[in-house]
């Protein structure tokens, strides 16, 4: 990162955060301008074209009405966030070892791997009603549906990651006499991380989708539940408030994964180019 040296000299604390924000605005001002214009257009357009408020509310109305119901919204954000983070975390924790095992076992590669590829082709959300009917309205079926959405991209990318060490590096490691564990720790694992992160990021984008749809199908709390109820009550303003919070939730998860990527593989070309 070319800005690393100037960051080191920047003052600590709030000033530093302000500095990073200022630099971000400096780099992305055109996007910020575009984004703000969209909302301004939305705000003015609703009045200008006399759109009924039960069809499309103004952003200011969304903020105002959302703020009035903020306690419920925040609690539901916590619920949906919990489902998302649990499902995602479990997917990473079991997905990576699964990928590793499949990459190195010819038996698993001929049995479990084609199964996983086939399942990845299935629209997994189609299983959601079944899990709700099997497991009820609680947290567990939601977490399982999030896992269903996140697990396969993580496993498939991990298989690719652990299976594609270059022939040269493989031979180099063998010629040192290093055992499997040492080779794994010092070469295979770090070499596999970039491709693993492709799966982690793809899954992070889809995790909130899984949680929301699971809540649509059967639940009594969470943002998905909230959006469905308020839409039924002709309150699109509150539905939009819920959608904003869901977006924020998704962005936070994706941001954290991207941050982890920067910390773990700063040397990789995809990170260096940013």
């Amino acid at each position, binding site marked *: 990162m070319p800005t690393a040296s100037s960051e080191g000299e920047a003052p600590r604390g709030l000033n530093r955060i302000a500095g990073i924000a200022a630099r971000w605005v400096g780099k992305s001002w055109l996007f910020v301008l575009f984004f703000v214009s969209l909302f301004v257009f939305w705000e003015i357009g609703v009045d200008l074209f006399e759109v009924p408020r039960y069809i499309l509310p103004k952003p200011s109305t969304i903020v105002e009405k959302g703020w009035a119901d903020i306690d419920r919204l925040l609690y539901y954000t916590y619920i949906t966030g919990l489902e998302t983070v649990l499902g995602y975390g479990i997917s990473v924790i079991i997905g990576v070892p699964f990928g590793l095992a499949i990459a190195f076992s010819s038996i698993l590669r001929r049995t479990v791997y084609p199964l996983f590829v086939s399942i990845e082709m299935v629209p997994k959300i189609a299983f959601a009603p079944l899990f709700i009917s099997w497991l009820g309205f609680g947290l567990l079926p939601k977490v399982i549906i999030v896992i269903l959405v996140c697990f396969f991209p993580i496993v498939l990318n991990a298989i690719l990651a652990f299976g594609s060490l*270059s022939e*040269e*590096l493989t*031979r*180099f*490691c*063998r*010629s*040192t*006499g*290093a055992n499997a564990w*040492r*080779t794994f720790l*010092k*070469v295979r694992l*770090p*070499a596999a991380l970039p491709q693993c992160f492709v799966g982690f990021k793809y899954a992070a984008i889809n995790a909130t989708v899984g949680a929301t749809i699971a809540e649509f199908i059967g639940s009594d709390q969470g943002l998905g539940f909230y959006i469905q109820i308020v839409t039924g009550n002709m309150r699109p303003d509150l539905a939009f408030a819920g959608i904003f919070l869901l977006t924020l939730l998704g962005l936070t998860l994706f941001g954290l994964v991207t941050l982890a990527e920067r910390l773990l*593989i700063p*040397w*990789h*070309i995809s990170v*260096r180019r940013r």
Partner: protein
Amino acid sequence: MGARLSLRAVAKTFGTGPSAVHAVGPADLTVPAGGFVSLVGPSGCGKSTLMLMIAGLEPPSAGEITVNDEPVTGPRTDIGIMFQDNTLVPWRTVRGNIELNLELRGLDPRAYADRIDDLIRKTHLTGFEHRRPYELSGGMQQRAAFCQALVHEPQTALLDEPLGKLDAMTRELIRGDLQALWLTSRPTVVFVTHSIEEAVQLSTTVCVITPRPGRIERVIDIDLPWPRDRAVKRSRAFGDQVAEIQEIFHAYGVL
């Protein structure tokens, strides 16, 4: 001092049945301790396969390879190995990459600190030891790869076209460093190259390999003074030696 290598009727066939490809051999070769042997030949003539078999990374289909009279049955850890595509990893610095070879062997890099400093100096990498490979030029990467391959002071170095991807000027420079390194510690070197001139400059012995299946067609001892600097390369004898090998390839329709 280097190890003694010997190949007796070594052959390699890939696959079985009618689709089998006879890649190499039978090849016979003896390399004295401290010799620098170049395998010269066109692409696909089995040079690399021959080298991998000496390293114990690829079992021969027939024949026997010995290192100091000991048969090669699996990967040998007393060699240093280097490929055209280097084995530097992007998450480590130059120094870290050199240490990687030691760490994989379970050796303590701190015990080799002086050796690493020495190698970095001799390969003109001073000031770059804390850079990562992608911050270096292709030539510097290959210099770092030399250090990585040789840090554990192997008796034998197997170098598979280590300069293959470099430009002519950089090749010339690194050849000089490589020769200086070899002359100080005299490991046994097996060096794979396409370049006849490179082979003549660096080697005690040049093996002319002809393709499909790869055979050691001629073994030529290069009797020129050391170090083979610019003066030697300009000499009549050097030119004659290069021309003689070119004629052999020409006779086989390769050149």
